[in-house]
Every structure is written in structure tokens, then in C-alpha cells.
């Protein structure tokens, strides 16, 4: 690890943002589950809808990373990013849903493609 202590911590403003936009929005739901959880039916319509929306938001995050790639991923052409997802998913299904095989094949596809492009 290189750098000074101030480099390690960054500015306090970013840590305040982490607390307000990261920590509190997550802990609210956990603590609500702890306080109200006793009386809720796990199979109720409300919880079914909440789970579906939560899953779709997660899917949106996956799409966002591929469509608007951050950092070094932006240097990879679009067809390789989307292709990696498709190839990985095919491997995932062919191996009776092995997460490991899916991730590995997606990565190999992207790296091979980059290597060919030079």
C-alpha cells in the first residue's frame, strides 16, 4: 500500500456522503425488518412485489456497468462487453448453472477478443 494517511482516507466530505447515501439507506431496511419482521407473512403480495423490484434494480445495475462502463472497462469495445455476458450465460446454462464456469467463460471471451484486436 503506498501513499500517505490523507491519501488513504480521502476527504471527509466523501465519507459523509458514504454515510448519508450508502450506510443509512441500507441499515434503515435491515432495522425495519428487525422491528416489524415478526408480523409479516413471507409469501405476501407486498413482499413478492418488493422482491421483484429489487431483482430488477439489480439487473439494471448489471446493464448500467455494461452500457456505461466505468474506468478501465470503457476501453473494451461494446460488442466484447455484451458478448462476454452472452457467452458467460451460455456457459452458465450448459454447466447446470455453475457461476464459476459462467464468470470464467465470459472473462476468457473478453480477454481473447481484446488480444485479437491488439
Amino acid at each position, binding site marked *: 500500500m503506498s501513499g500517505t494517511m490523507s491519501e488513504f482516507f480521502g476527504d471527509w466530505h*466523501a465519507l459523509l456522503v458514504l454515510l448519508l447515501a450508502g450506510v443509512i439507506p441500507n441499515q434503515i431496511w435491515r432495522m425495519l425488518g428487525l422491528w416489524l419482521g415478526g408480523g409479516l407473512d413471507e409469501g405476501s403480495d407486498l413482499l413478492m412485489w418488493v422482491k421483484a423490484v429489487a431483482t430488477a434494480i439489480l*439487473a439494471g445495475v*448489471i446493464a448500467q456497468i455494461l452500457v456505461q462502463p466505468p474506468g*478501465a472497462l470503457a476501453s473494451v469495445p461494446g460488442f466484447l462487453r455484451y458478448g462476454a455476458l452472452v457467452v458467460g450465460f451460455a456457459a452458465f446454462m450448459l454447466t447446470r448453472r455453475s457461476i464459476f464456469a459462467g*464468470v470464467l467463460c465470459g472473462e476468457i471471451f473478453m480477454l481473447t477478443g481484446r488480444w485479437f484486436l491488439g
Partner: protein
Amino acid sequence: MTQLSFIRLIAARFTPSHFAVPFPPLDSPQWHPPLRAFAIGMGAVRSTILSLVLFVTYVGIGALAHDTHFSLAWAMMGTLLVWAGPAQIILISTLASGASIVQSAIAVTVSAIRLFPMVVAVLPMMRAPETKRRQLVLVAHFTAVTLWVECYRFLPHVPRDKRIAFVHGLGCGLVLIGLVATVIGYELAANLTQTFGSAILLLTPLSFLFSTARNSKELADVLALGLGLAFYPLASLLNSGLDILVSGVAAGTIAFAVHKWREGP
């Protein structure tokens, strides 16, 4: 190690037999010492493929935090205090793409709703009539997709009065893996070539997609995942700052409606 024995070792780690739970029998005196259940829980992280998925995800998060110019301490505190991979990704990527604190907070809050049903589902597994609510605060904090899935698998093999200690151990073990992976990802992104940096950032969408697909047993889950992927590119054309929210609520609501319609009156 010869190549063959290496392949056998890998195969043994990823085949279903590996998923046997290596705990003492329920009535064994080995469960009695107070710290023993905690230690068994912490050790249980070695017997789950999800530890590897968690590791890979957090390497990606560490790398993302680096490439979007957050500090290492910021990334580590996120892992320790937020402890929800998707929320951390949304937080980092929305802030980095110029969203305001309020916009980020709304997107993260909505993504975190799924923690609520998880906590509701997990707690009854370790609650006894005499259990106080404050004894479960740490369990609620550790609850995220990995712990939620593993509780269903592990807890039937853990004596009921030892389950809170066991889950504390399991949670600490998982957080430790997450923290180490965050640091590794951050440092790798700082020091690797662009090719390897992009490979690490690609880990997150791949591992999220496949671990969610694996947990999607009902039609509503599968539809929510598929529609959510398809809707985001459309919603992003709106450029509202809440694109993830718009596509997520739309896709999730359609998935839920189809599920209800198929179920019939």
C-alpha cells in the same frame, strides 16, 4: 502437483458432494463452549462456493472504487458498514456519473429494499421466545444475499440455541473475505494494465448476473431479471438521474403482475 490431481481437486471443490455440511452432530458436546459455535460459523465460509463469488464481487467493487477516484478507506468502510454489494456498486457508479447525493441516496434506498424481506425471513430461524431484539441487531446487519442463502443451508445443522453465535461467526468470516477482496481489487486496479483492470471490472456484472439467476426459482424472479436487463438501456435514454429506479420499478411491477396473472384468481 500433477495436472490430473489438480483437476480432481478443482472438481471436488465445485461438485455437489462438496456441499455437504461439515459440522458436529446437533447433540454433540462440541457445540457447548461459547466461542465454539462462533468459530464453527466462521470456518463455515470455507465450505461454500458463495465465498468465492463474494470474493470476486468485492475485488470488482475495490477496483471500481479505485477507478472512480474514491479512497481506499472509503471503499473499506463501505464494505464494512454498507455490506451490500449491489448498493455499493450503485452508490459508486451514480456518484461517479455526477448524480447528486439525494439521487444516489434514493437509488441506493430502493435497491436496499430487498434486504427487508431477507431480514424478515432469516430472523425466525434463530429467534427463541426468550431472545431479545438487541441480540439480533448484528445478525440483521450481516444479512445480505450470501448470508441469507447460507442460513437456509447451514442452520438446520446447528442447535437452535447456538445459531446466533454461529451466524455472528459466519457474518464475520464473510465480511473479512469482503474486506480483503476490496483491498486486493483496489490495489490491483491501481497497479495493473488496462487489460487486466477491465477484466476485474467485468467480474461484477458477470458474478451478479449468474448468482441472481441461480437464486431465481420462480417465474417472477426470472422475468424481473430479464426485463430489468432489457429496460435499463431504454430508461437510460431518459437521462433522469433515476434511470435505475425507473427501469427497476417498471420491470419488477410487470414481472409481479405476470406472476399474479399466471397464478389466476
